[in-house]
C-alpha cells in the first residue's frame, strides 16, 4: 500500500480506540438455537438502571407467560414479566451478575411446561396511534436498552420526543469481541428490526434513522439493506470495525460528525441511540404484544463445545445455558457480557437478565494475566482513549488518593471501555482505578447529601425545641397571669387557695412534656 493510500486510510479511520481480535466466528455463523425451558427461573427485580421493580405476586401463585410479576417504582424504572407460565416458588435473594458477588432480590419461578400466554391486546395499526401511546406500550412491556446499559427505553424515547430529536441512531455496532447476538438478530429478523426502528421513529417523531453496523458483519448489512429498502428514511451505514464503536458517543460522532459534549446527553445534540435488539423487542411488544421476557444470548469462549447464539428466557441460570452448550473443560473465568466491559461472574448460579448479551466461558489461554509494571508514560492509553482523556494522569492521581484531581482530569467522562487497560504495555489495571474512583466519589457524594439532610433535620429539631420552649414559657406566663388575677380576686374575698393551683400547673407541664 502506497503512502498516499495509507495516509487517506488513517484519515478515514477513527483516531481513538483499539482493534482487538474479534473472535466472533464461528459462533456468529451458527444458526440460532432455542434453549429448552429450564427447571427453575430466577427473575431479578432490578434488571435496569433506576429504581428496582416491586413484586406484585405471592409465593405459591400461578402466573402465565408474559404476566406482570413486578411493577415499576419511581420515574426511571421498568416492570418485570413472567418468562413462562408456572408457579412462584420463592421471592428472595440470589447472587447478582455483578463483580461484587453480592445478592439482590429475584422472583423464583418454577415452569409448568405448558408455556400458556397471558391475554394481550395488540393495536391494529400502531402508526395511527399517538406517539405517547407507543411509548406507553414500550414501557408496559418492560423494554430496556439491550446493548448493555439497560436504561428504560420508554424514558429515553419520551426524552427524545420532548427535546425534538430528529435523528434516531440504531446501534448495530456490537464492537465487543466474541459477541454476535445483535449480528444474529439483524441476520435472522431484519424486517422485525426495521419495523421496530419505524415504531421508535414514530414514538419520538424522528425524521430519519441511521443504522450503524460494523463492517465486519457483511451478512447483517446485506440483510438490513434488503429489509430497509422500502423505507427511504432508514439508512444502513457500515462503520469501521473498531472498539468501542458500539458506545453511543463514538457511534454518534462517526455517523453524524457531532460530538456529544461532556456532561451532555445524546439528546442535547438532537440524537437518540437505541440498539438493534431493542428495536426487535419494540417490534415484538407492539406488534405481537409480547413483553421483554426472552433474548438472544451469545454463548462463546474456549471452554464451550458448541459456541453460538441461543434464545434464552430471562431468569435462566448461567449454569443451565452452559449445560446446554456443553463445557469442554472447567472454565477459568465466566464473564457476562463482552471481554472488554463484561462482568466477571463469581459462579454459574447467576440469572441471565435483560441486558445480558453474552456468556463467555474462557479457558486459561484466553486470559492474559500479567503482573502490573511501572507506568513509563508512553501515552498509548491517551491515543486509545475514545473520550480524549489522559488515563495515565487520572490513574496516577487515583493511586495517590487524589480523587478530586482525577475528577479535574475528566474522570466523569470516562466510559469505562477498557481501551487504555487493553493497550497498556505495563498492564496497569487502569479501568479498575477508574471504577474504584467513580464508586468512591459517588459514595462521598451520598455521604455529603446524607450529612446535609442530617444538618437540616437537626436545625429543624432545634427550631422545634426552641418554639416549644417559647410556647411553654408563654403558657406558663399566661397561667401565672391568670393565677395572679385569681389570687387578686381571692384576696379580694380574703380566702387564698394557692396550693391547688400549683398542683394543677405541674400536671399540665407533665402533659406538655409527654406530648413533645
Amino acid at each position, binding site marked *: 500500500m502506497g503512502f498516499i493510500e495509507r495516509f487517506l486510510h488513517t484519515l478515514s479511520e477513527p483516531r481513538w480506540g483499539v482493534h482487538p481480535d474479534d473472535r466472533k466466528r464461528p459462533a456468529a455463523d451458527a444458526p440460532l438455537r432455542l434453549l429448552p425451558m429450564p427447571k427453575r427461573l430466577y427473575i431479578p427485580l432490578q434488571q435496569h438502571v433506576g429504581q428496582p421493580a416491586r413484586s406484585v405476586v405471592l409465593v405459591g401463585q400461578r402466573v402465565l407467560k408474559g404476566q406482570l410479576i413486578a411493577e415499576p417504582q419511581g420515574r426511571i424504572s421498568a416492570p418485570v414479566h413472567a418468562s413462562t407460565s408456572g408457579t412462584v416458588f420463592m421471592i428472595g435473594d440470589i447472587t447478582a451478575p455483578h463483580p461484587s458477588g453480592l445478592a439482590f432480590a429475584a422472583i423464583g419461578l418454577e415452569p409448568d411446561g405448558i408455556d400458556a400466554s397471558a391475554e394481550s391486546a395488540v393495536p391494529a395499526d400502531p402508526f395511527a396511534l399517538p406517539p405517547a401511546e407507543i411509548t406507553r406500550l414500550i414501557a408496559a412491556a418492560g423494554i430496556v436498552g439491550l446493548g448493555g446499559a439497560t436504561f428504560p427505553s420508554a424514558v429515553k424515547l419520551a426524552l427524545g420526543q420532548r427535546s425534538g430529536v430528529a435523528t434516531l441512531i440504531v446501534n448495530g455496532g456490537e464492537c465487543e469481541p466474541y459477541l454476535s447476538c445483535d449480528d444474529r438478530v439483524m441476520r435472522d429478523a431484519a424486517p422485525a428490526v426495521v419495523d421496530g426502528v419505524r415504531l421508535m421513529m414514530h414514538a419520538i417523531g424522528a425524521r430519519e434513522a441511521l443504522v450503524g453496523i460494523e463492517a465486519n458483519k457483511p451478512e447483517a448489512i446485506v440483510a438490513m439493506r434488503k429489509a430497509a429498502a422500502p423505507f427511504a428514511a432508514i439508512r444502513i451505514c457500515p462503520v469501521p470495525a473498531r472498539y468501542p464503536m458500539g458506545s453511543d458517543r463514538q457511534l454518534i460522532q462517526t455517523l453524524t460528525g457531532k460530538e456529544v459534549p461532556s456532561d451532555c446527553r445524546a439528546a442535547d445534540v438532537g440524537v437518540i441511540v437505541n440498539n438493534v435488539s431493542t428495536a426487535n423487542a419494540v417490534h415484538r411488544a407492539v406488534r405481537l404484544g409480547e413483553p421483554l421476557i426472552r433474548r438472544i444470548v451469545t454463548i462463546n469462549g474456549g471452554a464451550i463445545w458448541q459456541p453460538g447464539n441461543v434464545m434464552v428466557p430471562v431468569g435462566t441460570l448461567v449454569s443451565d445455558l452452559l449445560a446446554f452448550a456443553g463445557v469442554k473443560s472447567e472454565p477459568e473465568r465466566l464473564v457476562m457480557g463482552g471481554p472488554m466491559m463484561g462482568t466477571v461472574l463469581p459462579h454459574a448460579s447467576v440469572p441471565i437478565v435483560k441486558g445480558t448479551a453474552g456468556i463467555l466461558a474462557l479457558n486459561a489461554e484466553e486470559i492474559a494475566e500479567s503482573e502490573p509494571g511501572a507506568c513509563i508514560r508512553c501515552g498509548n492509553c491517551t491515543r486509545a482513549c475514545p473520550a480524549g482523556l489522559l488515563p495515565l494522569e487520572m490513574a*496516577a492521581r487515583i493511586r*495517590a488518593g*487524589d480523587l478530586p484531581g482525577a475528577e479535574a482530569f475528566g474522570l466523569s467522562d470516562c466510559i469505562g471501555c477498557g481501551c487504555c487497560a487493553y493497550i497498556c504495555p505495563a498492564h496497569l489495571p487502569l479501568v479498575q482505578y477508574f471504577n474504584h474512583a467513580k464508586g468512591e466519589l459517588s459514595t462521598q457524594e451520598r455521604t455529603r447529601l446524607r450529612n446535609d439532610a442530617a444538618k437540616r433535620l437537626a436545625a429543624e429539631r432545634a427550631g422545634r425545641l426552641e418554639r416549644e420552649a417559647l410556647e411553654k414559657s408563654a403558657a406558663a406566663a399566661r397561667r401565672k397571669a391568670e393565677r395572679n388575677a385569681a389570687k387578686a380576686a381571692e384576696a379580694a374575698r380574703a380566702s387564698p387557695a394557692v396550693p391547688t393551683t400549683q398542683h394543677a400547673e405541674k400536671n399540665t407541664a407533665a402533659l406538655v412534656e409527654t406530648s413533645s
Partner: protein
Amino acid sequence: MSEYLVLLVSTALVNNVVMVRFLGLCPFMGVSKRIDGAIGMGLATSFVIVLAASLSWILEHWLLVPLGLSYLRLLTFILVIAAVVQFTEAAMRKIAPDLYQMLGIYLPLIATNCSVLGLPLINMQEGHGFVTAIVYDFGSALGFTLAMLVFAGLRERLALVRVPHAFSGAPIAFILASQMSLAFMGFSGLNFK
C-alpha cells in the same frame, strides 16, 4: 532603561536568590508542597522584600549615614523587616484567611528569611541607587517566586509517582532541588553584551 531590564533578568534568573545564592531556602522547602501555597508564599515574601528593602534604603541613606550611625544598620534593618512582616501577617489574616491558614508558621518566619535581610545588605554593599535597589530587589523577589512556583509544580507531580521508600519524603525533594539548581546554572550562560 535596558540597563534595568538586564538587572531584572540577571537577578531573577542568572543570580536567582534561591537556586544560585542559596538564600531563603526554608520556605522553599517548607511551603512548596502545593502550587497555591507556593504562589501565596512567593507573593507575600516579594511584598516584604520590596517594602523592607526600600524602607531600609531610605533609613540607611537619610538617617544612619547622615548621623554616622552605620554600626546600627543590622538592628535597624531587622526592626524594619519585623515590622513589615507583622503588618503583612495582620493584613493577610483579614484579606486572605485561607492563605493565612495555609502558610501557617511560615508566614511569621518570613521575618527570618535570609533573603529578606540579605538583599538590603547586598544593596548597601554594592552601593545601589534607590531605583536600582528597588529593581534589584523586585527582580530577586520575582526569582524567589519563580523558584517556589516551579518547585511546587514539580513536587505536585512528585506526589503522583512511585518513589523508592528510602527516598520518599524530604530526600527526594532535596534531590529535585539539586536538579533544579543545575537547571538554573544554565542561565549563567546568558550574555547581554
